[in-house]
Structures are given as C-alpha cells and as structure tokens.
C-alpha cells in the first residue's frame, strides 16, 4: 500500500509539468518507433502469409498466358467440377438457412431443457476434423457400414456420388448460419414478437414482418460464409468423393488432381477461381458489416 502511494507521488511530481492531453496520449500510446515497428511487423506478416500466396496463385495461373488459363477453366472436367461445386452449394446453403434460422429461433426465443446440448451439437462440426466428418458418412452409408447392403440392394447411391458430397458439405457448413444468428437474436430479445402476438399477428406474419427484417443482414452474412465454405471444402468431400474424374470431383478436388497430374498452370488457374470466390466473399462481407453498422447508427438516431 505504502509502495503504491510512493510511486504515485513520484509519478505525479515527475510528469506534473506536462499538460493533461499529453499525459493521456503518453499513457495510451507507445513511442513512434515502437508503433511503426509493430505496424510494419503486422504488414510484413500480412504480406508474407496472405498477399504473396494470393499473388502467387494468379501469377502461376497466368504464367503460360490467357489462352492456357481459359483452356484450363473451360476444360470439360473443370466444368464438371464447377457444376458439382455449384450443385453442392445450391443444396447445402438453402438447407442450412432453414436449419440455421429454426435452430437460432428456438435457442434465442425459447427456454427449454437440453438447450445447451443443442448448442453444443450445432458447434460439433467446428470441433470435428472435416476428414472425420467424411468418414462418418462412409461408416453409415458405405458398403461395410450400417445401411450399406440395404442401399446396395435398393440401388441407392449416397457416398462416392453427389448425395454424399452434399451431405458432407451440409455437415461442415452447419454451424455458420445458426452461430451468426443466435447472439443477434438473443440481443434483440422477444419483445417485438410478443407485441406482434398480442396484436393478433399469425406465426408467419411474425416471422416475415418482425423476425426476418431484424435478422436480415446477419442472415446474409451467415449465408455468405456458408457458401464460401461449401465451395471451398476439401477434407470432408475428399473422403466421400471417390475422385471419379469428371463426375465426383468438386473444384478443390479438381485442383489437387491437376496438381498431381503435373499440370501446374491448370491447377493454379482453377485455384484462382476459388481465390476469386474468396475475394468476392470478403468484399461482400465488408459491405454487409458496413450496412449493419449504418443500420445501428440509424436506429440509435431514432
């Protein structure tokens, strides 16, 4: 106790000739060279780990000119991979929107037993390695798995075919929408919905007129993340794909095959599509964050 007082008085006496403003800025910031050093370390880090690899993808892709680039991305197998990737995303994203909104709605607006278990389950795909996610489906639907012989006898193909790829994609993207919406919906509370209910609104009216407008931007954000992951997923899809060229390869798997075929330029050309997707995603994400911030300011001014 006495020590603290002692240093306090020393500090006071030492800096008493500074005015308050300087003292505050001194207290909250480091000397200029430290600041510049830290900033350049961060920039260097970003450059080496993010920007250089990204540039490398595009330079490698265009190394042999635009003709090779377009030949690579318009190749029949590449087109098949794009188609499959789009199919998987087009199925996985809407389903995850439905699941995600329902789960977030149940968790944020209601109290029930087992709620924490449900939240844990939703997070499970984040905790499990994607390869394991793929293997789970092989254990269930594979020939040696639980339903293997039934599916075989009834001529239903799940793994090593499109349904397996869609299932694996849904599994790994499951948490994105729900995780995005739960905190948002919890913060908003249920007052507005209750008011709507009291005024005689039906369930659908409450969903469309009250809940949906409130979560619109958060939902869109979740959809964009889901989509990016759905199109970029490698591990889980690789486990259930069977790697049939031109049939069960998604874009990331196609990149791997081209690389193994020693077709570097083509591999990077297809990879550049995925990189472009990432960049578009980031731009959209930034835009949405900006819109959300604008909304918040707007709401506060009211």
């Amino acid at each position, binding site marked *: 106790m006495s020590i603290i007082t002692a240093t306090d008085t020393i500090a006071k006496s030492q800096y008493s000739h500074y005015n308050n403003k300087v003292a505050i800025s001194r207290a909250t910031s480091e000397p200029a060279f430290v600041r510049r050093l830290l900033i350049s370390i961060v920039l260097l880090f970003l450059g080496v780990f993010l920007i250089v690899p990204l540039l490398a993808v595009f330079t490698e892709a265009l190394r042999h000119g635009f003709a090779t680039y377009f030949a690579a991305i318009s190749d029949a197998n590449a087109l098949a991979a794009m188609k499959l990737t789009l199919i998987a995303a087009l199925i996985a994203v809407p389903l995850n929107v439905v699941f995600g909104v329902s789960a977030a709605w149940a968790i944020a607006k209601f109290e029930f037993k087992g709620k924490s278990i449900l939240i844990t389950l939703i997070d499970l795909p984040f905790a499990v390695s994607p390869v394991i996610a793929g293997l789970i489906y092989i254990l269930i639907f594979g020939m040696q798995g639980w339903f293997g012989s039934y599916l075989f006898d009834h001529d239903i193909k799940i793994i*090593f075919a499109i349904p397996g790829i869609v299932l694996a994609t849904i599994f790994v993207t499951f948490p994105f929408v729900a995780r995005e919406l739960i905190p948002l919906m919890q913060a908003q509370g249920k007052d507005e919905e209750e008011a709507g209910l009291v005024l005689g609104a039906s369930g659908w009216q409450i969903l469309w007129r009250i809940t949906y407008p409130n979560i619109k931007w958060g939902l869109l954000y979740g959809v964009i993340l889901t989509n990016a992951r759905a199109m970029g997923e490698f591990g889980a899809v690789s486990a259930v794909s069977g790697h049939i060229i031109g049939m069960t390869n998604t874009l990331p798997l196609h990149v791997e095959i081209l690389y193994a075929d*020693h077709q570097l330029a083509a591999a990077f050309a297809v990879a550049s599509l995925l990189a472009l997707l990432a960049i578009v995603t980031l731009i959209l994400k930034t835009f949405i964050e900006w819109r959300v911030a604008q909304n918040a300011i707007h709401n506060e001014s009211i």
Partner: protein
Amino acid sequence: MKKSLLAIALLSIAFGAAAPTLASAKDITLLNVSYDPTRELYQDFNAAFSKYWLTKTGDKVTVKASHGGSGKQARAIVDGLDADVATLALAYDVDQLYDKAKLIPKDWQKRLAHNSSPYTSTIVLLVRKGNPKGIKDWDDLTKPGVSVITPNPKTSGGARWNYLAAWAYAQKKNGGDEVKTKEFIAKLFKNVPVLDTGARGSTTTFVERGIGDVLIAWENEAFLAQKELGQKDGGKSKYEIVVPSVSILAEPPVTVVDKYAKKHGTEAVAKAYLDYLYTEEGQEIAAKNYYRPTLASVAKKYEAQFPKINLVKIDDDFGGWQVAQKKHFSDGGTFDQIYQK
C-alpha cells in the same frame, strides 16, 4: 402378288425386329478405379478402347477414371466405390476386395494371363542431372548426406515395391542375414525426409518441389519424369535414371469387380476392356507409357526402351503378397520396426 405381299410382311417383320437392335446402340459407362501413376496410361487406353468398342458393337463406352494410392483405392472400392474394373498396384490390394467384401472370387488372379497383370514394371532410381551424389546402386542410398524420396509403404503400392526391391538387394548382399538386411533398410529410411501417401505425390515432391537427391520410383514414373517433365522447360532432361543391380518385378494386376459390374450389367464390356489390355494395341499403349509389355511381339519391339535388370519375383523370393504384407507392412512388421527406431 400374294407372295410379294408375304415378302413385304416378312421384310417388315425382319426390319421391325432389327430396328430395336439398331436403336439399342447403348451408352455405357465404365468406372476404372486405378492407382496413382496410371493416369496417362489409361487416358490413352480409354480413348482407344472406346473407339474399338464403337466399331465392334456400335455401343458408345465412356470410361471414367479415379486415381489415388493403391491401398486407399482398394479401401474405397470395399466401402462402395462401385468400380467395374480395378487396376491396382499390387495383388494384395486386390485381395482386399475378396477378403473384406467378397466383391470378387478368391481365385480372381487366375482369371487372366500373367497373374492378371497385362503389363509389368520395376523399380528404378531417378537422380538429378549429372548425378551429383554419384548414385550407382542401392548401397549409395544408405550413405550419410544422401536424401532419398519414397512414398509411405502403409498407403502406397509403389512404396511397397520400392521397399521390397531394396530388401531383396540387401538380403543378397548380406547372404540372407536378416538382421543386417534390416539394418540396411533402417539406414536407408533414415535418409528419407518426406513420406508422401502415393507414388505421384513423391514424384511431385522430387520434381516440382526440388526436394531430395534420389527418387525411388516406378520405372514408368521415372521415364515420365525424365522424358516429359524434365524437358518441359527447354531441351535437355534435368533427370537421369540409374538402374540398380537388383530390382523387383512389379506386377500390377487388373480385375473385373464382379459384384458391381453385375449390378451395372457391364460384365461383358468390363471383361472386354481388360482383354483389350492384352491385345497388340493395348500392349503398344502400355509400352508407349513406359510400362513393360507382356505380349512377346510388342515386348521385342520395345526391347531397347527398357533396361535389362536382374529382377526378383514376389512369389519366388517373398512367398507371395499375403506373406510379404504380413511380414513387412502390417502393424508391427519390419517397416514399423525400423521406422520407429
């Protein structure tokens, strides 16, 4: 008059009957699940077979392909990857299709000539241009400071052939002394910085990433790297093949996967596909892709392409794949023993 009417009636019946057969020119899809380095071989072969089958029967065959480490591919077929034909790196992996899932009969290997291996290969050493480390034989791979690239024998068929080729050499050198042989292999694997999961991964490590002084590789893969990849960036090859004094006769077998083919109704086409591998055309394609042909006439034609090597055989020197797998590559086998040290 009546007769001609009858003739017309008969003709129309004949055409009526013929019409469905004409219309039934089918679109058939075959799935060939294969191991890693056969990509180029089967790209060429599938095109040739489709052409052959179209002229022979009028049916259009599209052959789809899947490539990966041989053990991994066998596992996928067992799990339900419904291949019509499996063309893997070694008999043990094909045996799994019977052992684990009864997809094929036990005596599958007797169904086609040459132990069901239409083409063979062997294991050679690929070094960088000028052979800077002076590698001449397996001995040089155990020297300190030599970096050796080979895939993981647990997942790769090629890696298992590599391992057994080195083993055969060490055993001969040490007069059959197993302890010394093991020491030799242990020393060799001390020089291995990366174990890729498949042969193609190792080639990529050696060629594209520039790691290692020597690549233990399938002969066909070594030729491919030397002739096609090495010359990509201007003229002379950047690699040289070193032929060791002893190597192993690698027999990559092929089989129809009966259970799946039967379900797809493709048994006949699948069988014809494999038979075509044994024909002169098929053998030519194999030889052009640096696989050793088994048909005498084609083998003679390409004699100069393949170096003469003293080759040991899996059945004679290792007691067949079942025995070799158990002794060397199963859990606790010699590979585990030397690699855990």
